[in-house]
């Protein structure tokens, strides 16, 4: 009789949670073990978030918060597959149906999904979100990523239909990855130009398993569990981003016990991490790649090829002259590896069989000799027609690793008879020089998108012609363009991979950059944290499922939700869209 009664009570509690009647009681959550609920995670943030509206976020810190407060229709899986809908997990959409001609996808919203202010999520919100992302006056940085979506229509209050301009393998990814659904009832009356300065941008109302609580600029930003969430409350009570002005201050917070988690530890910090009885190292995959980018065009007269680096033979020789394995060990120790190309190993298109330009100083010298670059005057620097084999290398001084790489490259190329002058700039000035193409070479780094075809934006011919694109080196090769276009159009994954391999091969042969490092990410975390998974594109994606074992809780874990600030009502700006 007694066990029967307990089962009945448990069933009642679960039903209450499923009906959206959750409260602070851990038992009243969908499938959550009461003992596993609770705890506080303090994340040391090395910078401040910019804006908390997903469509306008520019900073990685802003993206982390926005991703936790807002939700997409579906979430990419751990494999980061971008073709079709394999691996994608339901979020605001509980299911979806493809049109027979694949021109559209109908997303069926979860009827229990609610905004944090209690209003239900409706298909009209999805249509509004798409309109906002593509509105030229909003100028969303994500707009180019959703440009293949023609429109979003509302079939009924819970069904939003995405119509595409063309059929392509990444339609589903395009529809769900870049857009987080926004509340029309709170933003619909805000003029596009006023969005950035609207109160909503600093105190957002979303649908995520965490809701916004408070933000004290330069100090902290706090999120708390939405206890009534339709997918079950977050297991942690709260997440606090403790804002530090830079990397060093952020790691100090971790080591001093003022924070529980910092996402990137450096090799030189590992002994300290190992000595600290409260901390552990948590390795995870990332999507970052660093490279020395060559400018194909003359920095002073963009129409002309670069007098030194415009020659593919020189670029190949420079690549051969650099011992990238040794450099990666010197700078990153075991925290990095030499990339296979412009992509990282965690992406679905990664291919270790693509030929690489190997380290071979003798062949590099021979190649430079045959290209006419010889050290005739014996000063250690090769010349050709009176021009020395020399270039300036831009390095952002905000990155210790890239500064170190600059010195190593300078030293190794000196042995090959190449004079490299390092120009250290702060990040803003560095970026400006890249964007305006006023550089010879630069050590740049990218955080990639899971889509393997995203490299088209950085290396595609069309992007090279558009001066404002992110193809800063103005690299262009019709063979690469054709291969990457075919890869993005192929519906068969195997065929798509074949084309991708061709694209990577072309790029490696042309050497528009020397692929320097692919970091192996290692986070520092408090030992009491049970981290359930860190996705390569967004390590924070699973925080709602991280837990703190009851027996290991410290004072800040026992704060509960009572002290959480209720979000202030969001004032609406005047005007209309």
């Amino acid at each position, binding site marked *: 009789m007694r066990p029967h009664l307990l089962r009945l009570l448990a069933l009642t509690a679960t039903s209450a949670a499923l009906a959206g009647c959750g409260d602070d009681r851990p038992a009243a959550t969908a499938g959550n073990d009461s003992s596993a609920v609770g705890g*506080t995670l*303090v994340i040391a943030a090395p910078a*401040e978030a*910019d*804006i908390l509206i997903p469509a306008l976020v*520019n900073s990685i810190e802003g993206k982390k918060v926005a991703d936790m407060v807002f939700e997409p229709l579906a979430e990419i899986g751990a494999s980061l597959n971008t073709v079709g809908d394999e691996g994608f997990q339901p979020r605001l959409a509980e299911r979806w149906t493809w049109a027979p001609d694949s021109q559209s996808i109908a997303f069926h919203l979860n009827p229990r999904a609610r905004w944090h202010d209690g209003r239900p999520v409706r298909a009209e919100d999805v249509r509004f979100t798409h309109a906002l992302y593509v509105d030229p006056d909003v*100028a969303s*940085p994500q707009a180019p990523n959703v440009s293949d979506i023609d429109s979003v229509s509302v079939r009924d209050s819970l069904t939003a239909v995405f119509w595409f301009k063309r059929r392509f393998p990444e339609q589903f990814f395009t529809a769900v990855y870049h857009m987080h659904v926004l509340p029309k009832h709170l933003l619909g009356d805000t003029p596009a130009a006023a969005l*950035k*300065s609207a109160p909503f*941008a*600093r105190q957002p109302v979303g649908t995520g398993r965490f809701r916004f609580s*408070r933000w004290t*600029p*330069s*100090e*902290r930003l706090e999120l708390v569990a939405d206890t009534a969430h339709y997918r079950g409350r977050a297991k942690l009570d709260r997440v*606090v981003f*403790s804002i*530090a*002005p*830079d990397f060093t*201050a952020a790691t*100090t*917070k971790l*080591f*001093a*016990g*003022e924070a529980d988690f910092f996402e990137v530890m450096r090799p030189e910090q590992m002994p*300290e991490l190992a000595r600290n009885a409260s901390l552990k190292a948590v390795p995870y995959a990332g999507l970052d790649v660093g490279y020395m980018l060559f400018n194909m065009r003359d920095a002073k007269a963009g129409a002309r090829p670069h007098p030194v680096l415009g020659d593919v033979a020189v670029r190949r020789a420079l690549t051969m002259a650099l011992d990238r394995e040794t450099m990666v060990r010197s700078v990153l120790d075991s925290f990095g590896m030499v990339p296979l190309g412009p992509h990282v190993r965690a992406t679905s298109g990664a291919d270790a069989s693509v030929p690489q330009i190997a380290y071979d100083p003798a062949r590099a010298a021979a190649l430079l000799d045959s290209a006419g670059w010889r050290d005739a005057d014996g000063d250690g620097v090769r010349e050709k027609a009176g021009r020395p084999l020399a270039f300036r290398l831009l390095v952002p001084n*905000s990155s210790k690793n890239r500064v170190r790489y600059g010195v190593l490259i300078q030293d190794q190329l000196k042995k090959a008879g190449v004079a490299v002058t390092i120009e250290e*700039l*702060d*990040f*803003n*000035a560095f*970026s*400006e*020089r*890249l*964007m305006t193409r006023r550089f010879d070479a630069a050590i740049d780094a990218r955080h990639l998108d899971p889509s393997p075809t995203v490299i088209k*934006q950085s290396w595609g011919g069309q992007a090279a012609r558009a*001066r*404002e*694109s*992110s193809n800063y080196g103005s690299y262009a090769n019709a063979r690469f363009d054709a291969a990457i276009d075919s890869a993005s159009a192929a519906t068969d994954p195997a065929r798509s991979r074949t084309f991708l391999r061709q694209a990577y091969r072309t790029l490696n042969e042309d050497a528009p950059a020397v692929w320097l490092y692919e970091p192996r990410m290692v986070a520092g975390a408090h030992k009491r944290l049970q981290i359930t998974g860190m996705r390569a594109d967004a390590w924070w994606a699973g925080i709602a499922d991280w837990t703190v074992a009851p027996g290991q809780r410290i004072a*800040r874990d026992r*704060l509960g939700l009572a*002290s959480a*600030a209720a979000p202030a009502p969001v004032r609406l700006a005047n005007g209309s869209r």
Partner: protein
Amino acid sequence: MGRYLAGRVAQALVTVALVATVTFVLLHLAPGDPCLDIEGRGVSAELRERCRVAYGLDRPLPEQYVRYLAALARGDLGWSPSLQEPVRSALARALPNTLLLMGAALALAFGAGIAMGVAQARRAGSLLDRVSGSLSMAVHALPDFWLATILLLVFAYWIPILPVTGTSDDLVYESLSPLGKVADRLYHMVLPALTLALLLFAAVARHQRAALLEVAHEDYVRTARAKGLGERGVLRHALRNALLPVITLFGLAMPALVGGAVFVERIFNWPGMGQLAVTAVTRRDYWVVTACVVVVSAMVAAGNLLADLLHAAADPRLRDR
């Protein structure tokens, strides 16, 4: 005295205006672009241009300058593109933190420095004088950023008894009682204020010691002693005159204190003017940087003015000039 004061205020205003001008021009001539930070690196040229127009950066520099000065004269410090709020809101948040830190550091440095100087002067040549003098000079010789880093290292890693970052406890501050909030702030202020104070303390002590020793041989001190005044009374007599060099030091200390605050705020993650300015520089937020420089130069000018007033209060002869 009134004319003198008015003259000093006018002088301070001119100094602030000059500093604002130089800052404005240098910032705009430096490489970089605020719109890169606002719109992101991959932004199109069209969006970037739209951003430049929105912030008036497309206009000729002299026009931008005149507009800025006109706005400044109206008390409008502009809109911060990196923070997406009025500059005055950012300043209103940061300035009290800096004033609190500098105020605490000044009180500590001058309070302890004067006491130490007096103690050393009274036992001039003793072991205490020699040891404390050497120690304080050693501390004085340390660069501010080094001292801050060492204190951070000691209290973050070796003896973790004091908070090393921030102005308050990230989690419990909001739920504390008013008294608890004050205590929490003071607790968080110990390290940054101590670092800043240590930088000044030795100089104050040295100046106070030297000044007291100098006046100790003055006729009026000898007369006071001859009239049978106790040592305490003699000290009170002598100290008033011996304070003049220390007051001068107060005026001179302001720029050093402001400079030190930049490092200290950065290292201890204290969200004051220094940290605001440094972050704004990296993000090319011209408006915040210029406002910070204007406010800081005004603070330095005010500090010097205050030193003059204290001089006049301590030395009646100056009031009549």
